[in-house]
C-alpha cells in the first residue's frame, strides 16, 4: 500500500491504479501505468509499468512531482467461449469448481493473483475437454483449500450427489491442493454408497502459466470421469514431473508429500488405482470398486468437528491432551512415533502420556493411533508401550494416514454414535489394507 503522503497526492489529482501518470523524481522522469503497491514494502516507492513492459520503483521523495496524463484503459471484458457444443455421443461429466491454484489467475496488468469466478475461463484454456465429454460446469465456491473445513466438504459432497442424480456419468472436483487429501477422504466416506467416478484435481502451478500442470491434470481427470470403471472417490494429479500421464489415487490413501512439485500427491500404503494418459487410455493397477447405478444411495453428511489430530514429539506436555478433553472433544487422533508410541516411561513421570490417555478414554473420548512415519502400519504388540496403550483402549488405526484417520473419526462420531471406536480400524471404503505390499514405499 502507498503511504498516506503518496495517497494524498493521488487523491488530489484523482489518480487511481491503472492510470497513465508522469513521475518526476531524483533518478529521472518517467511515464507509465500506476501499479498497485503490496501491503509490505516502502509506501513511498511508486511502481510504474513502463512502455517497455518493465515495472520500476521510483521514490517519491523531496522535490518529486506527479502528474496525471490520462485515465487508464478500461479492463477488457473477458471473452467467453460461446455456448459449448453438445455432442450426444459423449458422456456427461460435471465439473464442480471450488477454487485453488487451478482456478487462480494472474491479472496481467497489476500482477495480482485472484480466484477465477468464472470457471468457463479455465474451460476456454483447455479446449481438448470438449472432445472428451459434455462438460457441465458447477461453480460452487472460490476458496483456497487451507481455508476449507467440514462445511465445505459437506457442500461439495451434496453437490456431487446432486450432479450424479442429474445424470452425470462422472464428476470432477477442482480444488486447492493443500488439503485436497483431507477433502478426498471426507468425500470417500460421505459418498461411500455412490458408485461413480468422483475425481479431485488441482494444480501446483497456476493456469495462467504456459507451463501449468493444470491442463494435463484437468484433461486426465475428465478422461477418468468420462471413461473409467472405477466407482470411487480419488485424486488425479501428475505422477511425476513430466506432462505424460497422471496417477489416480484412492481418496483415503493419498497425501501431499511435497510443497511445490507437480507430483506432490503420492499413494500411501497402496498403489495408485490407475495411471491415466491425456489421450484417454487408462491402466489399472489396483483392485477397485466398479461403477454402478446410483440406486437408492444417499450422501451421509454428518461430521463431528470436535475431533483433533495431535502430532506427538519428544518433550510434548501431556496437558495438551487434557486441554482437548476439557474442551469437550469427542475424538483424538494421535500421530505417534514409530509403530504408534507416545512418551510413556519418561524420566520425569509428569511427562508421561499414559495416565492422560487413560483419563481421556475414561471420559468417553475415542483415541485413535496413527504414525508420523506416514508409511507403514501401527502395531499393538512389539513394545511394552504399545501393549499398555492398546490395553488402555487406544484404537490402533492399521495403515491409515493420520489425515484419513482424523476425517474418518469425525465422520463416524457424527453418523454412527456409540460405534465410532469400534469402527475406526475396520475398513469401510478402502482406507485400510490388510496386506502391505513390498513396493509401496516410494
Amino acid at each position, binding site marked *: 500500500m502507498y503511504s498516506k503522503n503518496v495517497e494524498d497526492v493521488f487523491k488530489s489529482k484523482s489518480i487511481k491504479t491503472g492510470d497513465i501518470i508522469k513521475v518526476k523524481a531524483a533518478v529521472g522522469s518517467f511515464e507509465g501505468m500506476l501499479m498497485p503497491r503490496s501491503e509490505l514494502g516502502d509506501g513511498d516507492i511508486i511502481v510504474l509499468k513502463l512502455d517497455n*513492459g518493465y*515495472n520500476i*520503483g521510483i*521514490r517519491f521523495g523531496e522535490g518529486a512531482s506527479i502528474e496525471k496524463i490520462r485515465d487508464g484503459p478500461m479492463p477488457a471484458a473477458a471473452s467467453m467461449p460461446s455456448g459449448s457444443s453438445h455432442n450426444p455421443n459423449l458422456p456427461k461429466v460435471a465439473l464442480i469448481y471450488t477454487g485453488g491454484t487451478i482456478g487462480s489467475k494472474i491479472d*496481467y496488468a497489476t500482477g495480482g493473483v485472484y480466484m477465477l469466478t468464472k470457471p468457463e475461463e479455465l474451460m476456454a484454456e483447455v479446449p481438448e475437454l470438449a472432445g472428451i465429454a459434455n462438460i457441465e460446469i458447477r461453480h460452487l465456491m472460490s476458496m483456497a483449500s487451507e481455508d476449507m473445513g467440514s462445511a465445505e466438504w459437506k457442500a461439495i459432497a451434496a453437490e456431487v450427489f446432486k450432479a450424479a442424480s442429474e445424470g452425470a456419468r462422472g464428476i470432477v472436483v477442482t480444488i486447492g491442493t493443500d488439503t485436497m487429501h483431507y477433502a478426498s477422504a471426507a468425500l470417500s466416506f460421505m459418498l461411500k454408497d455412490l458408485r461413480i467416478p468422483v475425481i479431485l484435481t488441482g494444480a501446483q502451478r497456476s493456469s495462467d502459466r*504456459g507451463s501449468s500442470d493444470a491442463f494435463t491434470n484437468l484433461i486426465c481427470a475428465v478422461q477418468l470421469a468420462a471413461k473409467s470403471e472405477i466407482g470411487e472417490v480419488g485424486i488425479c494429479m501428475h505422477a511425476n514431473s513430466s*506432462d505424460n500421464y497422471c496417477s489416480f489415487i484412492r481418496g483415503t490413501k493419498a497425501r501431499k508429500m511435497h510443497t*511445490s512439485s507437480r507430483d506432490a500427491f503420492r499413494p500411501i500404503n497402496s498403489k495408485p488405482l490407475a495411471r491415466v494418459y491425456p489421450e484417454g487410455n487408462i491402466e489399472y493397477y489396483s483392485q477397485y470398486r466398479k461403477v454402478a447405478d446410483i440406486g437408492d444411495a444417499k450422501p451421509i453428511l454428518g461430521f463431528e468437528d470436535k475431533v483433533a489430530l495431535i502430532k506427538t514429539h519428544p518433550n510434548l506436555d501431556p496437558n495438551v491432551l487434557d486441554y482437548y478433553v476439557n474442551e469437550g472433544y469427542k475424538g483424538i487422533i494421535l500421530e505417534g512415533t514409530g509403530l504408534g508410541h507416545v512418551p510413556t516411561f519418561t524420566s520425569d513421570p509428569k511427562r508421561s502420556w499414559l495416565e492422560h490417555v487413560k483419563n481421556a478414554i475414561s471420559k468417553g473420548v475415542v483415541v485413535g493411533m496413527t504414525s508420523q512415519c506416514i508409511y507403514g502400519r501401527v502395531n499393538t504388540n512389539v513394545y511394552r508401550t504399545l501393549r499398555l496403550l492398546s490395553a488402555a483402549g487406544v484404537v490402533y488405526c492399521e495403515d491409515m494416514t493420520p489425515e484419513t484417520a482424523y476425517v474418518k473419526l469425525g465422520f463416524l462420531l457424527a453418523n454412527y454414535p456409540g460405534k465410532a471406536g469400534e469402527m475406526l480400524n475396520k475398513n469401510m471404503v478402502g482406507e485400510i489394507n490388510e496386506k502391505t505390499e513390498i513396493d509401496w514405499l516410494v
Partner: protein
Amino acid sequence: MVAGKEGREYYRSIGFKCGLEIHQRLLTKTKLFCPCDASLDSGWPIAKIYRRQKAVVGELGKMDLATEFESSKRRMFIYSAFRNTSCMVDVDEEPPHAVNSEALEIALLIASAFDAEVPDEIEPMRKEVVDGSDPSAFQRTMEIGFNGHIDVGGRKISIPFISLEEESAGIQESTQEFVVYDVSRLGIPLIEIDTLPEIETPEEAKEAAYRIGLLLRLTGKVQRGIGTIRQDVNISIAGGARVELKGFQELDIMDKVIRNEIERQLKLIEIKKQLEERKAKVHEPVDVTALFSSTRSKIISENSKGGKVLGIRLEGFKGLIGTEINPNRRLGTEISEYARLAGVRGIIHSDEDLDSYGFSTEEIGALKKTLAIGEKDGFMLIAGKAGIVEDAARFAEIRARLAISEVPKETRVVDSKTLTTRFLRPLPGKERMYPETDIKPILVDRKYYLSLKHMAPDIEREREKLAKEIGNKQLADQLLGSQSMTLYRKILSETGADPVTIASFILEKMKELRRGGIDVDRLSDELLVYIFKLFKEGKITRNGIYEIAKRLPKDKESVDSIIESEKLRRLSDSELLSIVRPLAKLGKEKIIREVMSKYRLNVDGDSLIAIIDKVVG
C-alpha cells in the same frame, strides 16, 4: 553487396537505423535465483523431464505470428537436468529463491560503467517465452538501469535500458516432434544492454558493439569464451522493416552482414514495387496430388508419400521469385524458409529449373492448367504429410503475400560463411510481461550505487594504464580488445610476474598453440596462475611456460612432473655462471649461441646476457 565506402550521408539517405542488444553472462558462483553452480560444469545428467507448454494468448487477446508459428509445431519439450547445475527451481518445481546478491552487485557496477541511473526499487518481472527454452514458460528479468550511454568515436550512443535476467536453456537437439534442452545454462545471470537506434553506419555498429563488450570485460566480472556474449543487431531502412539479426559469432563480420541486410531489404522493396504494379495476388492452395501420381520427380514422390502435394498460383510473380536479393538467396529462398517451419523440406517454384527436379512437360502442363497459370504468373509446389503440408502452405502463402505488401519484420540468423542471414521467426510482438510475485522487489541503496562509480572501469583510463604497464602500446591495445583481459589481470595480480611475458603468452603463444591444434583453452585459469608463479619464482623460463602449456597438464602435480621429465628447470644464476665462465674467451655472441643451443629451455635470454656481461665485463 553495398560497397562499404558509403559515408554517413548515404546511410542517412536510405533511412538506415540501427540499435544493439548485447547479452553478456556474468561471472558468478551461482545462478540468479537458486544456489546451483553457474559454471556449466554439469557432471552426469540425472533426469529427463517431458513437458508440454501451452501458448498463451497475448496482451491484446490474440496470438501474434511468432507465437502462432511456434504453437503450430506442438512440440514436446524435454529437459535434461544435471546434479551440479540444476535443481527443482530450474525445472519449475520450486519457487525461485531470493536474487543472487553477487549478480546484482555486478549488474549495478556495469550500470555504473555505462553512466546509467538505477531505479529506487527493482521490480522482478516475468517475460513470457513460447519456444520452450524456459521450463516455466517465462524468463525472469528486471530493469536495473536507464539513461546510460557509451562513447563511440566521439559520438554518444544512448543506452536507455539495462536489465538483469536469467539465461535460457540451451538446445541439445531439435526435431519436428520435440526439442531437448540442457537446463545447466538456464538461470545463469545475464545482463542485457540496449542502445537506441542512433547508430548511423554499419561500421559504427561494429565499433559500438566492440566498445560495449570491452567495457563489460573490463569489469572483470563477466564470463568469457564462446557463447558468453551475444550481440544482436536491430536494423531498418526507409520502406523496409525492423529486422533483428542474431548469432554473430565474431564482431569482424558485423558491418558486412549489416550491409547485406540493407541490400536484401532494398531488393525486397524493389520486388514489392513491381508486384504492386502487376497487381500481384497469392491464390489459395489447390490439392494437385493426383497430377503427380506417377511422377519421376524424387523430391515430390518422396515427400508426398502417404501425404499430398499442394500447388499455389502466384499471380503476377513470374521472374520475381527467382530474383537474387543476396548472394545466392532469392525471394523463393525466403518463402521456402517460412514453409520449412511447419516441417516440410522446402518448396519448388516456377522460377527454378523444373527439369532438374525430374518433372515431365506433361506434368507441368497439367499443373499450369489446374492452377490457371497465366503468362506473368508463377507458382509454388509443396509436398509433405497431411497435417503438415497444409501448415507449410499457409506459412508460404503468408510470406508470398508479404512480398506484395511489405518487407516482413523478422528475427534472422547470421550465416558466418556467406555473411547473409536466414529467416528464424517473425519478430515477436510486444512480449507479455507481468510481475514475478514469487520474488520481493529489491530496494537500491543510492549511496551504495554512487560509491560504485569509483570502481567502474573506463576504457581510456584502462588503455593508458595497460600501455604503461606493458610498455608496448600495440600489445596493450590487442590485449584490451581480446577476451583475455580478465585472465591477464588475474595472473598479474596473483603472481606479480612480468606483464609483457603474461600478455605475449596469452595473445601470441596461446594463439600459436591453438593453431597447432592444441586445445590450450582447456588449461584452467588456476593452473596458468600456478605456472606463472613458478616463472616468477625463477623455477622455469619463458620457453618453459610454453613447453608446459603445450603438454596440457591436468593439475599442479602434472605441471611438476612435466618440468621433471622434460628437464624444464631454470638454471640458477650460479649454475649459469659456471657454464658461462669457461666460455669467456669466445665473446658475447658466440657464448649466447653456445649456451642457448644447449639450454634453450632452461635459460632466459635476458638473464644470460646479464651474466655474460658480468663475466666478459
